C-alpha cells in the first residue's frame, strides 16, 4: 500500500515541476518509475493495488477512446480526414516496421514498433497548439483531426491484436454477441442514461465507473479480451452524451494513468536489456517518420511544404498508446526501447512545436 502513496507523491511533485517548466509530465513519471524500480530507492513491488490501478488506467484510456468513435463527425470532415490518416498510418507503420526489422527485431515485434510510431500524444499536441496559439491555421485543424484518426487506429489495433487467441470462430461469436448486447442495451436505455449523466450528484460518476468495471467483469467471465467490451461501451455511450462522459471519466483516467506510467517505469530494467544505440536509432526513426508523414500530409492536403513542416513539428511527441501497446504486446526490449523513444520524442516534441517557425526557416530559407 505504501508504494502507491510514494509513487503518487513523487508524481505530484513531478507534475508541478514539469508544468512550471512547460514540459509534459508523462516522461517524468516514467523516469521516476525507472529510478525507483531499478536503483532500489524503495523496494517497490508490483502487484496488489498498484497493479490494479495501473490496469484501470489503461481501461479508462480505452473507454475514453471509445467515446471518441463517433462516425458522424468524420463525415463532416470529408476525405481530408481519411487522406491524412492513411498517409500518417502508411508512413509511420512502414518506417517503424522495416526500420525495426533492419535493427534486428522479429516481425511481430517490428509491427509493435511500427504501431507505436503511429501514436502522437494528443495531450502534448493539443496543449502545444493552444499554448503556441497556432489554432488559426488550417494545419492545426488537420493535426487535431489526425489525432482522432490515430486514436481510432490504435483502438482497432488493440481490439484486433488482442483477439487472436484460441478458437477464432467461437471467440468472434462471443465478441459479436457482447457488442450487439451493449449497443442494444444502451440504445434502449438511452433516455435514462442521458438523464443520469446530467445530474449534479454522485450518480453520473458511479454509473460510469460501474459500467466500465462491469464490462471488464463480463470480458473475464466470457473469456474475451477486455479491450472489446470497454471500447464498445465507450462507443455506444458516446451516442448519448459524449461531452458529459468525457468530463466524468477524465479524472479517473488521469489519476490511474499516472500510476500506470510510474509502475510501467519500474518494470524497465536499466541494467538489463537496454541498448543506448538501439534507443537512439529507434528515436531518430520515429522522428523521421513523423517528419516525413507530416510533409506528405502538408503537401497532399494544403499543397504547402511549410504546412507539412508545421504538421510534422507538432506531431513529433509520441504518447500513451505507444507505451500501452509496447507494454502489452512488446517484449521486454521493445517495451523499454519504445518507452525511451516516447520519453525522448515527447520532450523534444514540445520544443519542435514551439519553434516550428524557426525550423521551417532553417529548412527552407525565405528570401
Amino acid at each position: 500500500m505504501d508504494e502507491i502513496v510514494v509513487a503518487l507523491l513523487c508524481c505530484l511533485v513531478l507534475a508541478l515541476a514539469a508544468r512550471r517548466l512547460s514540459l509534459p509530465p508523462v516522461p517524468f513519471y516514467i523516469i521516476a518509475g525507472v529510478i525507483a524500480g531499478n536503483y532500489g530507492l524503495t523496494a517497490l513491488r508490483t502487484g496488489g493495488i498498484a497493479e490494479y490501478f495501473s490496469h484501470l488506467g489503461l481501461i479508462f484510456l480505452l473507454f475514453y477512446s471509445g467515446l471518441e468513435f463517433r462516425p458522424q463527425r468524420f463525415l463532416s470532415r470529408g476525405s481530408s480526414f481519411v487522406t491524412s490518416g492513411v498517409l500518417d498510418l502508411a508512413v509511420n507503420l512502414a518506417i517503424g516496421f522495416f526500420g525495426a526489422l533492419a535493427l534486428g527485431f522479429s516481425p511481430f515485434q517490428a509491427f509493435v514498433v511500427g504501431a507505436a510510431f503511429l501514436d502522437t500524444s494528443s495531450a502534448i499536441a493539443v496543449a502545444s497548439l493552444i499554448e503556441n496559439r497556432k489554432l488559426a491555421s488550417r494545419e492545426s485543424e488537420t493535426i487535431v483531426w489526425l489525432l482522432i484518426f490515430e486514436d481510432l487506429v490504435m483502438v482497432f489495433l488493440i481490439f484486433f491484436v488482442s483477439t487472436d487467441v484460441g478458437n477464432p470462430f467461437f471467440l468472434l461469436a462471443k465478441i459479436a454477441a457482447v457488442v450487439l448486447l451493449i449497443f442494444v442495451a444502451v440504445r434502449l436505455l438511452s433516455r435514462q442514461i442521458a438523464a443520469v449523466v446530467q445530474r449534479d450528484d454522485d450518480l453520473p460518476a458511479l454509473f460510469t465507473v460501474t459500467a466500465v468495471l462491469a464490462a471488464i467483469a463480463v470480458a473475464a467471465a466470457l473469456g474475451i479480451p477486455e479491450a472489446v467490451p470497454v471500447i464498445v461501451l465507450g462507443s455506444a455511450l458516446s451516442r448519448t452524451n459524449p461531452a458529459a462522459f468525457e468530463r466524468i471519466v477524465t479524472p479517473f483516467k488521469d489519476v490511474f494513468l499516472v500510476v500506470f506510467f510510474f509502475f510501467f517505469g519500474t518494470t524497465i530494467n536499466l541494467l538489463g536489456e537496454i541498448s543506448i544505440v538501439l534507443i537512439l536509432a529507434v528515436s531518430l526513426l520515429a522522428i523521421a517518420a513523423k517528419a516525413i508523414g507530416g510533409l506528405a500530409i502538408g503537401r497532399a492536403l494544403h499543397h504547402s511544404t511549410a504546412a507539412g513542416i508545421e504538421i510534422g513539428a507538432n506531431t513529433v511527441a509520441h504518447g500513451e498508446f505507444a507505451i500501452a501497446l509496447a507494454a502489452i504486446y512488446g517484449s521486454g526490449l521493445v517495451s523499454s526501447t519504445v518507452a525511451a523513444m516516447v520519453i525522448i520524442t515527447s520532450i523534444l516534441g514540445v520544443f519542435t512545436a514551439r519553434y516550428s517557425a524557426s525550423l521551417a526557416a532553417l529548412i527552407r530559407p525565405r528570401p
Partner: protein
Amino acid sequence: MSERSVELPGIGTKFELETENGDKVAIVFMNSGRNQIYIIEKGRDNPAAAELNAKEARRLGSILSGAIIEAEREAVEIAFSALSDLRIRVHTYVIPKKLAGRSIADLRIRTESGATIVAVSRKNVNVISPDPSHVFQEGDIVVAIGESDQLKAFETRILGP
C-alpha cells in the same frame, strides 16, 4: 463576408470570419471556458493572437455589438438589431448617505426621473426587480435603466449634487 465554423476535437470550436476587406478573424471557444482570438491581416501569414477568459470575452462581445463604455461608473447602451431606434441605457450608481433609509417608492424614482431601478446589490447579495418598498442603504449599488435624459434626471434630481 464569409464565415465558417469547425469543430476542433479535444479543444473546442473555431469560428472564422473573412471580412470584405480580406482580413480574417478567427475565434476559438475552448472547452475550458477560455477563448482565443486571432487576427490575420490581408496578405500576411502570421496571425496576432489574444487569449480571453469568459468574462473578457463577454465584455468584448458587448463592445463589438455596439455598446458604449463610459469612463466613470459602469454603463452600457443596448441596441436591438430588430428595433434599431430603441436604445436603452443601463447604468450603475452607488447610493449616497443622503438616500439611506428611503425606499424606491418614497423617492418616487420612476415618477421624478423616468428611470427604473432593475437591481440592487448590497454586499454581493443581488435583488433583481426590487419591490417599490425596498429600502436603500448607503453603499448599495443600483442598476438603473432608461433613456439618457431619464438617467440624467435620476442623477441630478434623485442622487443629488
